[in-house]
């Protein structure tokens, strides 16, 4: 695996910053009562979601789940589209039909999730196979939480992928909690990555806060899949840095573990690294943050001003 270019490193940082800032905006719109549905943030998961999705090419299929706004952004989604979606606007990607993070964009080959955890795994495997059947060199990338990894579709989907040697990569976002349930109450294996053994595919565990390492590992798995060598399972060990959703005060979370992970914030880790490597300087950082913030504010303004869906069309489009 070749080393990561400065350009990619900067891209990683920029998208991670944008992810954090966009989510902060979404939470603030939620607190203002502008967003009325559930809001699940990826605070602390930015390295995992962004670095993994940034390995994809245009023809690849991305199947993000509920904390993966960073993956949407990495695959090229605009903040405006995201906010139109969260605000249930007529011009949002789901035209107000779907809530928050559930949105697709065929142009970018992003397929939105259903709430049912794990349900997208077989679907993503199917997209991987569909691409291959049509002679494309596309790969499908999907995510699942450590909690969601205990659902039947995880098993059926991964096994199916293995048998078909599908160009598929699954990321387990092990952020230590599933809603209020700590990981040790969800499963008892040493590493979730070891479940790969039961499917006969490679499984690796990686530090979910180390963007560069994740990028390297996922890139290799995507490459492997693209070359016809089959699926992989990658477990990113990280931490959910807030409650399950914006209405959850997270009283049950382990404060010590949270504090530990706060010191290992993935964005700060990457910033420090890039500053050390002299790829960026402080003023560059300030500038990027400024740009991101302006983009988000402009998008929010436009999204809030955008029209709501016309209820007369509520029954349209049940069938293709």
């Amino acid at each position, binding site marked *: 695996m070749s080393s990561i270019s400065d350009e990619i490193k900067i891209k990683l940082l920029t998208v991670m910053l944008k992810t954090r800032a966009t989510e902060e905006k979404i939470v603030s719109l939620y607190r203002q009562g502008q967003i009325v549905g559930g809001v699940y943030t990826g605070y602390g998961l930015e390295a995992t979601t962004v670095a993994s999705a940034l390995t994809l090419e245009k023809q690849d299929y991305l199947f993000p789940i509920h904390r993966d706004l960073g993956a949407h952004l990495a695959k090229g989604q605009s903040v405006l589209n995201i906010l139109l979606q969260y605000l249930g606007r007529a011009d949002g990607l789901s035209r107000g039909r779907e809530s928050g993070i559930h949105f697709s964009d065929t142009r970018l080959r992003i397929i939105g999730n259903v709430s*049912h955890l794990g349900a997208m795994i077989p679907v993503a495997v199917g997209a991987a196979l569909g691409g291959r059947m049509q002679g494309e060199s596309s790969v499908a990338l999907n995510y699942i939480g450590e909690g969601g990894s205990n659902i039947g579709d995880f098993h059926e989907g991964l096994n199916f992928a293995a048998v078909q040697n599908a160009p598929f990569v699954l990321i387990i976002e092990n952020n230590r909690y599933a*809603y209020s349930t700590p990981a040790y109450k969800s499963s008892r294996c040493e590493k979730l990555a070891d479940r790969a053994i039961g499917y006969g595919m490679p499984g690796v565990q990686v530090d979910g806060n180390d963007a560069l390492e994740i990028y390297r590992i996922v890139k290799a798995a995507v490459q492997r899949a693209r070359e016809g060598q089959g699926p992989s399972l990658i477990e990113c060990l990280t931490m959910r840095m807030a409650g399950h959703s914006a209405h959850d005060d997270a009283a049950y979370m382990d404060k010590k573990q949270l504090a530990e992970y706060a010191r290992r914030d993935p964005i700060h880790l990457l910033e420090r690294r890039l500053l050390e490597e002299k790829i960026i300087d402080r003023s560059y950082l300030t500038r990027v943050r400024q740009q991101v913030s302006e983009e988000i504010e402009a998008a929010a303004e436009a999204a809030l001003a955008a029209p709501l869906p016309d209820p007369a069309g509520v029954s349209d489009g049940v069938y293709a």
Partner: protein
Amino acid sequence: MSETTYLQAIHDALREELLRDPRVFLLGEDIGVYGGAFKVTKGLLQEFGEQRIMDTPISESAIIGVAVGAALTGMRPVAEMQFADFITVGFSQIVTNAATLHYRHGLAVPLVVRAPSGGGIHGGPFHSKNPEAWFMHQPGLKIVAPATARDAKGLLKSSIRDDNPVLYFENKFLYRRIKEVIADEEEVLVPLGRASVYRPGRDVSLITYGAMVHAAQQAAEILATQDGIEAEIINLRTLKPLDQAALTATVAKTNRVVIVHEANLTGGIGGEISALLIEHAFEWLDAPIKRIASLDTPTPYSPILEEAFMPDAVKIIAAVREVMHY
């Protein structure tokens, strides 16, 4: 005497049954330390311990399958789906195992599945579902859908004491929106299989259940003042088995029927009720039976769309006026 919310009534029913019968235990996601996504089970872990308030992995099929297995050994599990929508994952266990064991092998399955259902809370397509009709078609199940705090409590206690698998669809929109006085010393038990007359009336029957009982009540009040129409509201309470006697009685009295449910129209329970009325009360019907239900789409998220999607008093009033003028 303080008032008990619909949510508190469910909590109280669970607590009372846990106290009464050591075979009762609860299982579900986040029901322990967190007290459940809606806090229905709050405090029960502290009172009854991990053996009886069992937090589970995210595995709805296993949650129900495990409950079936425990029930076979004589326990009386109460499983919680975090949202009714996720009951689809456990669908096969319910219809395949739970529902058929008594007919096939004479084995009782005293199991309750609690499932917070319903819309109006901007939950979008996967946090708003009313899945009851899917189970209507499976012999061996009972289905319950309380509309009031008292029913919520009394039906849940009866469900837990029933020797059959009971699906208990609690409407999450009602959780904190309705309450009534329930005396502490009172043992509230509402029998399964019996509807109630929520509002007596002579002109038209509104046959409904769950949250729609309240929409029907709103409609009935407006119809009474504006049109002088006295609607009788039948609160079904149990959906399977349906209370055929109560259905026939109300039609014999009013000769006109509007069925209201929050679930999608097509394939909903309204069709079954309509067919039963035709079969058993045809001679009493003076007008076509109308059904008011959610549109035949997934539940849309944007509030303006969700409002257009769901039934409400305005739609019910229009339907009543139609059948009255037939």
